[in-house]
C-alpha cells in the first residue's frame, strides 16, 4: 500500500519540494546518532534552500559526530490543508520522520514577517507553542538569524536564541545538549548552562518591566544571567568551515546557483540598513581560498552559475584578483559568473563589460533617495553623476533596461525629495536618448519604492515611521510626476511594511498578537497569495495593542529599548551620534577612508577590522 504522504503528493503543487533526496543531502545511520536536530526555515523550500546561512549551519551540524541535522520547510497552503485533513504531522526531509520526535528544533529567521510561519510550523508539527509548555529536553526550540537581534516578540515561544554567526556557537550549543541528554539534565538546568555560552540569549532569564505610558522601564536579568549578550562572529574566515559540498535541489529554487561569500561586514554605513551595522566588523576572505572553494563548489554541484555574494561585493578588496582568475575558468566551463551589487565606479564598469561576455543582465541601482541632500542624510554614498555615468556607459554598450530602487518615508523627507526621484528618472531617460546605440528596442526603466521601516541597531532605530496614509500620498505624488511610457512604477501597499515595523522594534507584548493572528490563519505573510492584513489587524485589536506605539510614535533617546540586552558590537553611542549627523545631513565617509569608531572592532581578538 502506498503511504499517506505519497498519496497526498500527486494532489499538491511542486511535490518534489517535500520529498528530499537531492544531490548532496546528508543521511545518517540512526544507530550512530545521539542528537537529532530539525533545522526549520520559516518559509517555503524555494526560499529556504536559497539561504546561505542555513546551508552553512546544515553542514556545520552534520560535521559533528553523533549529530544529524535535517531540513524542514513551511508547506505551501495546499499541502498544509492536506496535512491537516489527514492528520499528517510536519516532517523533516532527510528521514521523513516527524519533527516532534526530534531533540532540538532550530529556526533561522531573517524576516519579521516569517513569525507567523514559525508558530504555524510548530503547530503543524504538533509541538507546544509556548516554551513553558515544553517540558524536559525534548523539542528544545532555538533560533538565530538577523531577527534574533530583537527577539522579544518571540520570547515566549523560543527557548533560547543564538546571536550572530553560527559556525562556532552552534557546535557549542549542540555539544552541550548532547552532554545534557546523556546526563539527563532538567530543562531548567540546561537553559542556565546554555546561557553561559557567549552569544546565547535565554529570554526566560530576563524580566521586562513597563512604565504607565507603555514604554519599558527596566530589563532585569534573573538567576545571574548577563546584563547584555554579545553576538558571536568568526574572526578568521579563511579557516572557517565552508560547505563546498552543498545540496543541489532537484526542483527549481529562487537562487538556483552556487553561492560564494567573499567577505563579511560592510564598510558603508547606510543609516537605515540593519545588516550593514549588525554584521560588522569587516572580515575578508583571501582570493586564493575563494578561488579554491569556487572550483570545489562548481565541481561538486554541477551548477552553471556562481554568484559572489556579500553585502556589497564591489567593496571586496580582492575582487579584481578573484575575478581575473575566475572569468577564464568560468568561460571554459560554460559557467555564468554573477557579481551582484556592483557599484558605479570605474573598476565595476570594466568588470561589467567583462562579465557581459558571459551573460548580459539588467542594470540595477538603489539610490534609495531622490535628492543628494536626503542621500546624505541616510549616508547613501551614491551620486547622481555616478548613476548617470554608469548608465551612459551601459546604454552605449547595448543595455536598455534599468531598475531603480527607492524608499519613501525616510527621516527628514519632504515632497521635494519625493519629486527628486522623478527628476532623477528623467535624467536617466535623457542619458539613454543621448547614448543608446540601439534605440529600436526602447528603454525600460523600472522604478520601485518601499515604505521605510526603522530597524533596531541602526542610527534610525529611534525614528518614527510615517503613517500609511502619508506613505500612499507620497506614492501618488510621485506617480503623478511620471509621464514617460518607458517608466513602470511599482509600489506595495503599506500594510506589510507597517507590520514589519511593529515587529522589528516590538517587545514581549506582541507574542500574543502573533499567536492570535496564526490562530486566525495568518501564514506565508511574505507571499501576496496569502498575506491578509485583516488577520493581523484583528489580532492587534483582540490583544489591545496599538500599532502606532511601535511605528509612528518613535522611540525616545533615553527610553529603554526592547533590544538593549543584545549587543551586536556597534555601540549605541555611535548610533546616536550617527542619528544626529543625519539630521545635519553630514556624511560619514566609509570605513576605508578611516575608522568611524563604530565599536564593532571590539569583537575582534586576533585580527584588526579589515575595512
Amino acid at each position, binding site marked *: 500500500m502506498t503511504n499517506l504522504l505519497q498519496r497526498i*503528493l500527486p494532489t499538491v503543487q511542486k511535490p518534489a519540494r517535500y520529498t528530499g*533526496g537531492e*544531490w548532496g543531502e546528508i543521511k545518517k545511520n540512526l544507530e550512530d546518532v545521539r542528537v537529532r536536530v530539525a533545522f526549520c526555515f520559516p518559509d517555503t523550500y524555494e526560499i529556504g534552500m536559497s539561504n546561505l546561512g542555513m546551508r552553512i549551519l546544515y553542514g556545520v551540524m552534520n560535521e559533528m559526530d553523533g549529530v544529524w541535522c535535517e531540513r524542514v520547510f513551511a508547506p505551501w497552503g495546499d499541502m498544509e490543508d492536506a496535512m491537516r485533513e489527514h492528520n499528517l504531522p510536519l516532517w523533516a526531509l532527510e528521514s521523513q520522520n516527524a519533527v516532534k520526535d526530534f531533540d532540538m528544533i532550530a529556526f533561522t529567521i531573517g524576516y519579521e514577517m516569517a513569525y507567523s510561519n514559525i508558530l504555524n510550523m510548530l503547530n503543524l508539527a504538533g509541538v507546544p507553542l509556548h516554551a513553558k509548555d515544553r517540558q524536559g529536553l525534548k523539542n528544545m526550540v532555538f533560533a538565530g538569524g538577523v531577527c534574533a537581534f530583537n527577539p522579544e516578540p518571540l520570547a515566549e515561544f523560543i527557548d533560547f536564541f543564538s546571536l550572530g554567526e553560527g559556525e562556532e556557537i552552534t557546535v557549542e550549543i549542540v555539544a552541550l545538549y548532547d552532554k545534557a541528554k546523556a546526563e539527563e539534565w532538567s530543562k531548567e538546568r540546561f537553559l542556565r548552562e546554555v546561557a553561559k555560552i557567549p552569544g546565547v540569549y535565554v529570554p526566560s532569564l530576563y524580566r521586562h518591566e513597563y512604565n504607565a505610558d507603555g514604554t519599558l522601564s527596566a530589563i532585569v536579568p534573573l538567576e545571574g544571567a548577563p546584563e547584555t549578550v554579545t553576538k558571536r562572529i568568526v574572526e578568521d574566515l579563511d579557516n572557517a568551515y565552508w560547505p563546498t559540498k552543498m545540496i543541489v535541489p532537484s526542483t527549481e529554487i529562487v537562487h538556483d546557483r552556487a553561492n560564494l561569500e567573499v567577505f563579511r561586514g560592510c564598510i558603508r554605513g547606510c543609516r537605515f540598513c540593519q545588516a550593514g551595522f549588525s554584521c560588522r566588523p569587516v572580515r575578508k576572505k583571501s582570493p586564493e581560498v575563494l578561488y579554491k572553494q569556487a572550483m570545489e563548489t562548481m565541481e561538486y554541484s*554541477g551548477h552553471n552559475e556562481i554568484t559572489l555574494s556579500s553585502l556589497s561585493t564591489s567593496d571586496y578588496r580582492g575582487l579584481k584578483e578573484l575575478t581575473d582568475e575566475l572569468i577564464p575558468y568560468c568561460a571554459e566551463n560554460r559557467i555564468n559568473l554573477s557579481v551582484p551589487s556592483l557599484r558605479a565606479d570605474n573598476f565595476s564598469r570594466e568588470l561589467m563589460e567583462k562579465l557581459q561576455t558571459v551573460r548580459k543582465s539588467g542594470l540595477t541601482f538603489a539610490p534609495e533617495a531622490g535628492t543628494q541632500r536626503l542621500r546624505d542624510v541616510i549616508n547613501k554614498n551614491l551620486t547622481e553623476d555616478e548613476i548617470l555615468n554608469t548608465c551612459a556607459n551601459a546604454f552605449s554598450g547595448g543595455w536598455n533596461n534599468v531598475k531603480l530602487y527607492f524608499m519613501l518615508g525616510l527621516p527628514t523627507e519632504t515632497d521635494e525629495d519625493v519629486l527628486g526621484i522623478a527628476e532623477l528618472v528623467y535624467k536617466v531617460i535623457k542619458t539613454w536618448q543621448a547614448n543608446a546605440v540601439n534605440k529600436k528596442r526602447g528603454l525600460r526603466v523600472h522604478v520601485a519604492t518601499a515604505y521605510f521601516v526603522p530597524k533596531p541597531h541602526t542610527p534610525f532605530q529611534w525614528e518614527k515611521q510615517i503613517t500609511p496614509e502619508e506613505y500612499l500620498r507620497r506614492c501618488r505624488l510621485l506617480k503623478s510626476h511620471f509621464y514617460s511610457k518607458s517608466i513602470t512604477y511599482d509600489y506595495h501597499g503599506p500594510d506589510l511594511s507597517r507590520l514589519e515595523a511593529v515587529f522589528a522594534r516590538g517587545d514581549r507584548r506582541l507574542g500574543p498578537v502573533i499567536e492570535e493572528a496564526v490562530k486566525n490563519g495568518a501564514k506565508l505573510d511574505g507571499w501576496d497569495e496569502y498575506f491578509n492584513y485583516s488577520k493581523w489587524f484583528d489580532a492587534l485589536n483582540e490583544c489591545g495593542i496599538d500599532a502606532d506605539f511601535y511605528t509612528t510614535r518613535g522611540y525616545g533617546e533615553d527610553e529603554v529599548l526592547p533590544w538593549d540586552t543584545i549587543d551586536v558590537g556597534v555601540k549605541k553611542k555611535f548610533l546616536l551620534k550617527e542619528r544626529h549627523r543625519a539630521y545635519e545631513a553630514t556624511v560619514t565617509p566609509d570605513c576605508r577612508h578611516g575608522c568611524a569608531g563604530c565599536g564593532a572592532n571590539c569583537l575582534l581578538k586576533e585580527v584588526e577590522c579589515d575595512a
Partner: protein
Amino acid sequence: MPRLLFEKKGNAVWISHLDLMRLFQRAFKRAGLPLTHTQGFNPRPSVSIALPLSVGVESGCELLDFDLDGVIIPCKDIMERLNCALTDGVRVLDVYENGAKIKHLSYLDCCLTLEYDRGVAAGTVENMKALFCRDEVIVEKKGKNGIVEQNIIPMIRNLTVEQAGEKEVKIHARVCCQNPSLNPMQLSAAIDKYLPEVKPDFVRCCRVEVYDEQENVFR
C-alpha cells in the same frame, strides 16, 4: 546522437520534466562530461528526453538524447560516471552510440496498480475487462485548446486485468504513445467515469517498455 536509457523511481517520480532536464545537465557536469550547447542568445546544454513523463509516474524505460562536446568516451564509462553523479531514484541503465529516430517510437507498455484499502470488491476485475472490450470509451483529455473528449479504445493495443492480492488490481496495457498518444492515467480515468462503484483509493502508474511501429523494443 547518443542516447541513454534510464529509470525514474522512488521519490524521483516527483521531479517534473523540466527539472529533470536540469538535473541531467548538472549530472553531466558533475561527471565531467561536457555537453554541446544550443546556439542563440541563451545557450543551453543539449539534452532532450523522448516522451515527457507525468509527475508521479514511475518508469523503467526513459530515453534521453545528449551530445558530448568534442571528447569521445566509451558508452560504458559514460554510464558509470553518470550513475555516480545522479540522485537517488534516477539511474542510467544503458548508453547507445546512436538512437533510432524518435518518429518511429509508437507504443508503450504500462502497468497501473489500483489500490483498494477495504479490499477488492467481487466482480471488479470482470467489470473492468468488460469495460475495455467496448468499442467506445470516451474520456476527457486536457489539450492545448482546452478539454477534448476522445475515444481511448482504438489507442489500446492490448490490455489485461488481474487481481494481485486482496487489496490490489493490476492493469497491464500496451498503448499508443505518439500520434495519437494515450496517457496511461486515462485508463484509470475511464474506470472512475464508467465504473464509479469500483473507483480505487489510489492508483500507481508505471511505464515499463517502449516499442516501434513493428512492436520491437525501441532504443
